[in-house]
Structures are given as structure tokens and as C-alpha cells.
């Protein structure tokens, strides 16, 4: 009986674990294996331990690599600057409008990702009211355009991944014990001091989660660059997509995917090290 009971969790786990192993973990191996093959689509790809695929993939696409990280980083930063005050207002100031505002924040999810992006193409198109206003304010040159520029791609990335930034930050702000903020005020801290010393450190985990949830999908995205971008705005996702689905150069495509994954992993680890230790330092200060 006890032996059978000990097997229960494995039974419950089995279908999901097997599905994830077969269709997430093992495919990674096959992608790595494909990345080392040589040959062409018409003649077939032979296993060859072709390491040069990696260097080829990297050297031919440095611009797109740098661009992906710059675009995604900028979009993440703008999203954070929008999301934090908005989440703060919803969590601590909205009162009975809280649910309604939260609803508005997730509303974009109820329309298809692609249709949302195409809506931005309409908003940012050359003769649209929004672009006229930007031209009037001289933020865009008189005869300049927004569509087909890097700015349009960044705007699209920011919009599409903003809810992923808002939700974790909102969750961390919503759980905050407001008596801590009051305590700060009672101890004659200015509201800026209270915010920097109390609110911000407590919500740091939410910020870290939001930044990762926005940055990771943004780096790999190619829909925004495809629909809102122009000739000089291709991201690494566009290259991978084209290599896999149009040129059918599977080995180089797989090598490029691998490099992208490793690059993201490296950035995330560095970020977690910096951001994580920052949050811990906030903790220590509080205790001392």
C-alpha cells in the first residue's frame, strides 16, 4: 500500500512530464544535432559535426543580433516606466475602479496578437492623425515617417509585451502591507524616501519578473519587425524564420537559434545577478 502511495505522484506527473520531455527537451537536442549537419536542402543534410555553422550564423548576422537586444532592451525599459506608475495607481489608489482598470490592462489579450500589431500599422501609417501630431510637435521631421523605422518596431514591442510587465509588478504592489508605508511616513521620511527605501525594495521581485517576462519574448520576436519595420529593422527572429521556412537552410537556422538562446540566457543570468543582489541589499538595509 505504501509503495503504491509513493508511486501516486509519478503517475499524476507522467503524462505532462512525458509530453514536455518529448516535445520540449528532446527537440532541443535535435536542434543542436541539426546545427552540426552539413549539406543542402535538395541533397539532404548529413551529420558532420560542422562547427562552422555556428561561426557562419554569427558572423553574417551581427547587426540583427545587436539590433534585437537594443530594441528589446529599449522596449523593456519603456514598458517598465509605463508599467510601474500604472500598477501603483491600480493597486494603491484606484479604489472601486481597481477591477475595471485591471480589466483594461489585460483587454489587449482578448484580441489576436497579429491584429493588434496591424492596428498599430494603421495608427502609425504616414497620414494618420497620430503621426501628424508628432510632426506638429517636431518629434518627427515634417516629411518623416514612423512606420518602417526602428521606433515603430520598438513601439510595437513595448505595446505587445506591456501586460507581461504590468501583471507581476501589480501583483507585488497589491500584496504590499500599506502599514509599512505609513510607518515610513510616521518616522518622518519624505514620500520620495519612503518610496525608495520601502516600496521599491519590496516590489523588486515583481520588477525582476516583469523585466524577464517582457525582455525574453521581445528579443525573439519577429512579428513586430515584419509588420511595423522596414528594410533596416530586421531582428534575429526574422533571420531565423527566413532561414528555416524560406531558405530551408536548417543547419544554419538551428545554429542561429542556439546562439540566440545562449545569448539570452547569458543576459538573463547577468541581470539576475545584478538585480538579485540589489534586492538582497535592500533587504539588508531594512534589517540593520
Amino acid at each position, binding site marked *: 500500500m505504501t509503495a503504491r502511495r*509513493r508511486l*501516486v*505522484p*509519478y503517475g*499524476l*506527473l507522467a*503524462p*505532462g512530464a512525458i*509530453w*514536455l520531455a518529448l*516535445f*520540449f527537451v528532446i*527537440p*532541443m537536442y*535535435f*536542434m543542436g*544535432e*541539426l546545427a552540426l549537419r552539413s549539406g543542402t536542402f535538395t541533397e539532404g543534410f548529413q551529420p558532420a559535426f560542422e562547427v562552422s555553422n555556428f561561426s557562419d550564423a554569427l558572423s553574417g548576422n551581427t547587426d540583427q543580433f545587436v539590433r534585437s537586444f537594443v530594441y528589446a532592451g529599449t522596449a523593456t525599459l519603456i514598458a517598465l516606466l*509605463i508599467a510601474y*506608475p*500604472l500598477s501603483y*495607481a491600480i493597486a494603491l489608489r484606484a479604489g472601486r475602479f481597481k477591477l475595471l*482598470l485591471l480589466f*483594461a490592462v489585460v*483587454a*489587449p*489579450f*482578448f*484580441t*489576436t*496578437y*497579429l*491584429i*493588434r500589431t*496591424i*492596428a*498599430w*500599422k494603421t495608427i502609425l501609417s504616414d*497620414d494618420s492623425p497620430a503621426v501628424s501630431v508628432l510632426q506638429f510637435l517636431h518629434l518627427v521631421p515634417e516629411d518623416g515617417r514612423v512606420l518602417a523605422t526602428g521606433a515603430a518596431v520598438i513601439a510595437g514591442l513595448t505595446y505587445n509585451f506591456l501586460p507581461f510587465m504590468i501583471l507581476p509588478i501589480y501583483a507585488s504592489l497589491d500584496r504590499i502591507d500599506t502599514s509599512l508605508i505609513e510607518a515610513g511616513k510616521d518616522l518622518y521620511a519624505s514620500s520620495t524616501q519612503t518610496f525608495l527605501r520601502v516600496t521599491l525594495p519590496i516590489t523588486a521581485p515583481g520588477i525582476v519578473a516583469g523585466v*524577464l517576462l517582457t525582455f*525574453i*519574448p521581445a*528579443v*525573439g*520576436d*519577429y*512579428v513586430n519587425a515584419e*509588420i511595423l519595420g522596414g528594410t533596416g529593422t530586421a531582428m534575429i*527572429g526574422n533571420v*531565423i524564420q527566413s532561414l*528555416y*521556412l524560406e531558405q530551408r537552410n*536548417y543547419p544554419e*537556422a*538551428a545554429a542561429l*537559434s542556439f546562439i*540566440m*538562446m545562449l545569448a*539570452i540566457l547569458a543576459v*538573463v543570468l547577468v541581470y539576475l545577478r545584478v538585480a538579485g543582489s540589489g534586492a538582497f541589499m535592500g533587504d539588508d538595509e531594512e534589517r540593520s
Partner: protein
Amino acid sequence: MEAATATTARHVSDSMPARAWAWLRRNALMIFAGLAVVYMLVPILVIGLFSFEKGNDQGELDFAWDGFSIEYWTDAFGQTAVNDSMITSLELAALTMVVATVIGTLMAMALVRYQFFGRRATNLLIILPMATPEIVIGAALLSLFISYNFELGFTSLFIAHVMFCISFVVVVVRSRLIGFDRSIEEAAADLGAKPLTTFRLITLPLLAPGIMAAALLAFALSLDDFVISNFNSGTTVTFPLYIFGASLRGIPVQVNVLATMLFAVTVLAIVLVLWQQRKAEQMAAVRPDPEV
């Protein structure tokens, strides 16, 4: 001198622009939040608005407003290609929802209820897909299918969709399970209920809101997925894939009509669920305490 400045200051603070400035400063946060919410909603309004737009001669979106028309609403299902892709997407999403929700719920139960060897590894296995860019998941799966000459189509899409939905289902159901009062289950067992009966009559109904939320999420994720589907679809066309293909040629205005309908239905469903929940909470609040 000081008195003079003070009067001027008071005088200035009473003037209109200064009062407006003070008001702005006091409400800066709420004004910013309001603007941000408008920003979130503008594209949705644009989609709704441009479902009433005349379009070009082929009945396609031309990205500029040149006239009002309801012809696409009266002919909402007039584009067979749009309808077919929508039906494929709905079938795929429904199938994915059922399978991913069952599999994910079982996993969440195991993770919350049992201590076992390999828990950490399992947690990692669940988190990793959510932290991997979609394009890598799509590319890796395609690599697997290529290596085995597996024919791409509805089945490969189904495999992929269940795969990326499982993690989200586990996370949602687990958060519900963690706040679960187990004494009710124990009470059922004390009253002689068999484990399966307890599960059916106690655990499942109490978990229902979490499972429902997870199922809806899986449905929405599947319906909306483009990147992973684009890699593994073969010749099968889902709604997002159709839109992407059409965006290179010309998008029928009906796409905006169907998107607006889908949005309205979703909002209605959510309002209904929230209203039901509120009613249930009110009922629970008036119910007298069971006699002691």
C-alpha cells in the same frame, strides 16, 4: 520684503494657472494612469472602428479612414478563407484546452500534494518553456519533426500547442491548490467517502474556478499563437496564420469584424464569470454558520 513675497506667493497660488498646476501635481499619478489605460485600449478601438471602414475596391483594409460602411458586418462570414481558418483555430484551441488542462491539473496536484524525488527537476521542466522565446520552441520542434520526417499539419500543431499550454495550466492551478483548505477533504474521508468520491464531490468543485481560469488561458493562448504555429503548421492555416499571410497581400475587412466579435464575446464571458463569482460570494456571506 518677506511679507511682500508671501503676499505675491499667495496671489500667484490663487491665480488660475497656478491652481491648475497644483491640481495637476496632486493628480499626476492618476492622470498618467488614465493616459496609460487609454494607450492600452487605443488599438482595440482602432480594430473596432476599422471594422466599419469602407476598405479598398477588393474589400481589404487600406490603413486609412475613407468612409463608413456596415457592409462587412452584414457580410461577416462572406470570406470562406477567413471562416475556415477561424474554425480550424477554434477546433485546435478547444482540443488543446481539454488535453492541456487535464494534464496540467494532474501535474499541479502532484507538485502541491506530494513530496517526491525529482520535484525540483519537475519544477524546472515546467518553468523552462515559459522562459524560452517562442521562436526557439518553434524551431526546436520543427527540428524534431524534420529529423523524423513527421508530416506537419493539425497533429503537429496540436502537439505544439499542448506543449506550451501545460506550464501555464500548472502555474494557475497550483496557485489555487496552495490556498486549499484540506480539512474539508479529511472530513469527507472521515465520513467514509472513498478517495475518488472525495475528489469528485469535494476537491474538483472547490478547484473549479482555478481549473476554469487555466482552461480559458490555455484556450486563449492556443487561439492567439502565431510564432510556434508558423513553424509547425505545414499547410494547415489557423486564424493568426491566415492574417499573417493576408497581411502580405491584403487583409479582408471581415478580419476586423471577426476580431471585434471575438473581443465582445470574451468580454461578455468574463463579465458573466465575475458576476457569478460575486453572486456566489454574496451567497456564501449570508449563509448561516453550520450548527455547532
